[in-house]
């Protein structure tokens, strides 16, 4: 298949793996901060192609994983209302709130619909004028522009039964938190699709301020291996830099139009990240002019804050300080069928990918 097979060429992959083996003269740990990368790394079996002195760890790049229980509890509370239809990306269906999940609410009769874009939710709003349609906006700079366009369209078409519950987040502040938290690693495999929107310059503060190398990376096996090789070379030369491996999608300045949409609709806010707590200016909330679409303001619900399971180490895993196998619950109490923490729910969560793909 065009644009796929070229990047999965076995000969090229083996050549890259060979060059990595030759270049890797020390010990290296690299962190990927995109759930898509976590899934791709394990789905293609990349760790089995790398020598033992290269370790890959996952950061907070899975939007489902970093979303707090509180958000899910709110979504569940909304789903209990008779006049509400919840519209959500598929990944959120199984995420456990403190008591239940949207999937279980749907089984109990709640109207919860899986959609593929915010615009689908707008379509549902038009078809159901007597219902309130709440769209669970989640994701980083990748999905936030889509939500922004949806809000603008709702405004333009004067749709008055559409609301957003936003858990949108932005990446750089969380990456900075990881560095400040003292996690030990030599470079970031930077998120390709976030950077397609923001531009690679979004991450240039990392090598400049913290002297940690960054390579913006694509999602195919050759992309990942080439990026690992680029990061090794940066470490070997002691020359941390921001480089773009994923040139077919990413530029230095990014997608200006998408950035503009995002800026016009959202403004930064403090946001709660599972595993980190509140990170200042790391979330996106609707600007005052679009406030009427904010579900939290238009349809207030109260949820009781719950403590998360103390044995669950999702937080440490998201900060890169532990791996799923360090968790006492992993493969015992916590599995994809009965996830305790969010990292086990999402297809892109570390625990889920380790559980599914890792040969032990």
């Amino acid at each position, binding site marked *: *298949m065009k644009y*796929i097979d070229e990047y*999965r060429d*076995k000969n090229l*992959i*083996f050549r890259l*793996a060979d060059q990595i083996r030759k270049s890797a003269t020390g010990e290296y740990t690299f962190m990927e901060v995109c759930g*898509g990368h976590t*899934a791709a790394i*394990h*789905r*293609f*079996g*990349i*760790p*089995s*192609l790398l020598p033992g002195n290269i370790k890959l760890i996952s950061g907070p790049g899975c*939007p*489902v994983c970093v979303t707090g229980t509180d958000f899910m509890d709110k979504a569940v509370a909304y789903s209990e209302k008779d006049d509400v239809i919840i519209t959500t*990306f*598929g*990944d959120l*269906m*199984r995420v456990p709130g403190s008591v239940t999940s949207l*999937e*279980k609410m*749907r*089984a*109990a009769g709640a109207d919860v*619909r*899986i*959609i*593929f*874009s915010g615009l*689908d939710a707008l379509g549902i709003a038009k078809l159901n004028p007597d219902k309130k349609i709440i769209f669970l906006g*989640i*994701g*980083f700079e*990748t*999905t936030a522009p889509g939500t922004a366009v949806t809000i603008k369209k709702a405004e333009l078409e004067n749709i008055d039964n559409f609301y957003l519950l936003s858990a949108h987040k932005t990446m750089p502040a969380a990456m900075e938190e990881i560095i400040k938290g003292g996690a030990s690693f030599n470079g970031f495999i930077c998120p390709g*699709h976030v950077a397609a929107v923001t531009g690679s310059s979004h991450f240039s503060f990392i090598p400049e301020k913290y002297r940690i190398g960054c390579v913006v990376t694509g999602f195919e*096996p050759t992309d990942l291996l080439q990026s690992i090789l680029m990061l090794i070379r940066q470490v070997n030369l002691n020359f941390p830099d921001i480089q773009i491996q994923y040139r077919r999608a990413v530029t230095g300045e990014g997608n200006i139009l998408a950035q503009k949409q995002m800026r016009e609709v959202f403004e930064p806010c403090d946001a709660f990240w599972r595993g980190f707590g509140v990170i200042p200016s790391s979330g996106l909330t609707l600007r005052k002019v679009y406030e009427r679409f904010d579900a939290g303001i238009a349809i207030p619900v109260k949820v009781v804050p719950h403590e998360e399971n103390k044995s669950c180490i999702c937080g440490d895993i998201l900060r890169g300080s532990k791996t799923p196998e360090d968790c006492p619950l992993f493969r015992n109490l916590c*599995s*994809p*069928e009965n996830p305790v923490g969010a990292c086990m729910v*999402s*297809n*892109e969560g570390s625990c889920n990918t380790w*559980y*599914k*793909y*890792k*040969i032990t």
Partner: protein
Amino acid sequence: MDATVTLNHGSGGKLTHELISQVFAKKFEIPEPLTDSAVLKITGTTLAFTTDSYVVDPLFFPGGNIGKLAICGTVNDLAVSGAKPMFISASFIIEEGFPLAELIQIVDSMAEEAVKAGVKVVTGDTKVVGKGKCDKLFITTSGTGIMDHRLEHISSGSHIRQGDHLIINGPLGNHSIAVLGARNNLSFSTPVITDCACLNHLISGVLEKCGEVHFMRDLTRGGLAGVLNELAGMTGRDIAVDEAAVPVDDPVKGACEMFGFDPLYLANEGKVLIVAGSGSETEVLDIMRAYLPGKDSAIIGEIIPGERKLVVLNTSAGGKRILDMPSGVQLPRIC
């Protein structure tokens, strides 16, 4: 187990198995392993008996409809058990207000498939329920077929040995993607048509000409990954699959890339996995390729040394990973 039944309990993954083994098989005292058909011995004859319900939404999709599915599914369940499918029953639960023309079209498809497969629909039942009490139309088909008692081992995989080869009869995932594309709430369409087909002629062709078939199973819910994990569990053996050798059509690959699905987990309605004894794989492959639903047959893996019940995927990228049991309905990802 959960207090309520969720869609995951019907996905063909771990929760489906839990529900079946802890509720149905336990209460009805059905011995494990649970296979596609019950094999019954009645004075001198060995009979295979199976049943399946069809609730597909939408009822019509590219290349087929619920009726075609209901015949092929039951015929295939019998055929993969090593039986010659013979008689089918068909029960219809119809929602009040359902257009008769559509019902006739569906029944026409069933009749046509039955003729092609050489089976006879001999009995049935009709219930009409009030509006909203069922989703348009549900069909249940049961089927029986005569078995050669020498083939009783096939559904249990008890003859499987290290070095046996895994063969499938063509590309995976077409049915799932065709149905997904046909759902009204999706804003995309695909050129993919369902692979729904009766496989009994292909299977009997293989069985008649080759004595080295050690296992067969149709790759419906849970897909190839589901069946291989069941097989590893049943036989206690390790299995290796070569991802690059598994045929997947480009439009299916494309849809999977977009939604984050894995074609190895997608449901098929005209695909069978055959495990052939070492040395006989090319013979089986040649026989399969002579049939239309087998023209793209491929050898995709083998039974490897090791008894950890692992299914290992040699990825197309040259890496290795686990191919785990599906854990629920595959959900489209965020980005």
